[in-house]
């Protein structure tokens, strides 16, 4: 039994190693951020706050402002989340609580498959299937049949590539991620929770509503935040369908831009120093926006959990 004897050197070594590994994650994040901000500094110095508030992006004349791209990033992701979350949670609840075992395995397989499709495939599908469908079938119904063309949300000509197309495509792309994680979270809820609720005479829905969902709440929010992170960073698929225009429009039918697409589109051909720095600054902005939204989401979870909760 000598191998199991307490060995101070082995313990210390183990502790040091794992601490180093943990610190390396932080160091990586710091170095990455520092490099981006250093590379971005010429643009940040030249424009200051105007970089965030400016609506003009003109590489020829060296005027750079990312307000439309920030707007497009936030709006397209928020819309996608609003569309995908209810559906994904419904899928997860069905799969974890309701579906028979054989259907559950098929559903899981389909979700994994959806999550594994490369985003450029989603982009091409969006360009050649989703956008024409929206333009020919959906947008005329919205603007003419429902008469929404007079509302600012659906004003202007409907060419297809638009904020709406981007949000829909993003919703489809993040749905399997949210659903898969949410399913795992629900499956991890102890059966004792369910049995206790059922023993008290709860219906299946009441059991879910009062015993399972509250228990899984923080995990479910985590699933949604994961989806949001993916929506923020999605590049290729969005740039295929959003229309790539530096404009802030209230209309969902109008084209827009996102930070990630902007960087991907212009980085390869940016030879001027200021242009290069401006794209780096766009990357820094994306980093900050993601950080802010994540912090906000965590604060929300924290606030929801506090009153009278375990």
């Amino acid at each position, binding site marked *: 039994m000598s191998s199991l004897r307490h060995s101070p050197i082995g313990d210390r070594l183990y502790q040091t190693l794992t601490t180093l590994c943990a610190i390396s994650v932080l160091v990586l994040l710091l170095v990455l951020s520092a490099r981006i901000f250093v590379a971005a500094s010429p643009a940040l110095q030249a424009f200051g706050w105007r970089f965030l508030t400016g609506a003009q992006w003109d590489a*020829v004349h060296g005027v750079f402002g990312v307000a439309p791209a920030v707007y497009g990033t936030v709006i397209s992701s928020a819309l996608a989340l609003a569309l995908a979350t209810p559906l994904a949670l419904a899928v997860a609840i069905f799969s974890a609580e309701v579906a028979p075992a054989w259907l559950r395995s098929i559903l899981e397989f389909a979700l994994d498959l959806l999550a594994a499709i490369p985003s450029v495939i989603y982009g091409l599908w969006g360009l050649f299937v989703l956008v024409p469908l929206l333009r020919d079938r959906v947008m005329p119904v919205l603007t003419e049949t429902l008469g929404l063309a007079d509302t600012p949300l659906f004003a202007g000509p409907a060419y297809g590539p638009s904020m709406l197309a981007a949000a829909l495509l993003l919703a489809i792309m993040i749905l399997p991620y949210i659903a898969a994680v949410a399913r795992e979270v629900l499956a991890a809820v102890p059966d004792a929770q369910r049995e206790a609720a059922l023993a008290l005479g709860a219906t299946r829905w009441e059991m879910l509503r009062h015993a399972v969902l509250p228990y899984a709440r923080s995990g479910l929010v985590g699933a949604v935040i994961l989806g949001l992170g993916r929506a923020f960073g999605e590049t290729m698929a969005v740039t295929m369908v959003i229309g790539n225009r530096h404009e802030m429009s209230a209309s969902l039918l109008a084209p827009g831009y996102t930070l990630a697409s902007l960087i991907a589109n212009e980085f390869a051909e940016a030879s001027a120093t200021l242009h290069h720095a401006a794209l780096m600054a766009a990357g820094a902005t994306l980093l900050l926006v993601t950080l802010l939204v994540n912090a906000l989401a965590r604060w929300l979870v924290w606030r929801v959990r506090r009153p009278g909760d375990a």
Partner: protein
Amino acid sequence: MRARAFLSLLLALVAGPISAQSVDLTGAGATFAYPMYSRWISDYVAKVGIRINYQSIGSGGGIRQLSERTVDFGASDAPLTDAELAQLAERRILHVPTVIGAVVAAYNLPGLRGKLKLSGPVLVDIYQGRITKWNDSRIAALNPGAKLPNRNILVVYRADGSGTTYVFTDYLSTISPSWARGPGKGMSVAWPVGIGGRGNEGVSGQVRQILGAIGYMELTYAMQNNLTFADVENAAGHFVTPNQASMTEAAAGAVRRMSGGDTRVSVVNAAGSGAYPITSYTWLLIDARMANAAKAKKLADFVRYALTDGQKVTTALHYAPLPSALVPPVLKQLDALTAAK
């Protein structure tokens, strides 16, 4: 995420052995002439047996990598500006013209019989949003007898930075002072109207789908996708179809200027009755003071091949060969590469 991790592992496994093999020459840059370069490289590699690796990462990336000396040659659709050359002052960058390409204005008007005729000023006004309908009187004046629909024009541009955009905006700036003062010319410009497609497939996809759309792209792309494109009025007042003959004629006028040594010339809106006006050379960027003499010799040999035997396969890919009078002076430039340093 699992799939992504798996893919990158797969990539690492596949790419590892290849990059571990010794590559004799590496280059990076322009996408406009990439099909041509990759054809030349595969032909030359089969013939001579040296390994050349060209990455079409974009002109800007090619220039950056050349200045950081991570590649042996760059390639660009836009000549380096004097400011960019000044940044590379300790090098002697040669612009070696390799091939001639054309940018076309493709459109989607199914009811229209025959080819649309457009002039430079009309193209400028379409891309500035001053002409918004296909039956505008100025388009009708260029196309007597054509049944032009009362349809909105949707302008499509390249959202990603590209040499194609440079050539097209170079043309618009050349014929229109207001365009030159406004959006100007560049790899990516601030377009007054329209929507952006990513890559040639993005632009051609939008043009094919949306009735009334117009978009610019490389000739090869329009041919491969069976898109109709306009005949464009040239400086002599003729409406010209882009093809090998009209590209060559546009390029030939610049030979005298280029033979002097500076090959950085723009041939948009060239004189000559049959010249297609939206035509451009594309260049390899080579450091004449390359330190490694063995590499310099290999590179010079490859470029000599491209400029002589390689010119015979240009038309198969819808590019035009260099004017024959231009080849000797350019070959002579290459001597600097192999001369004793």
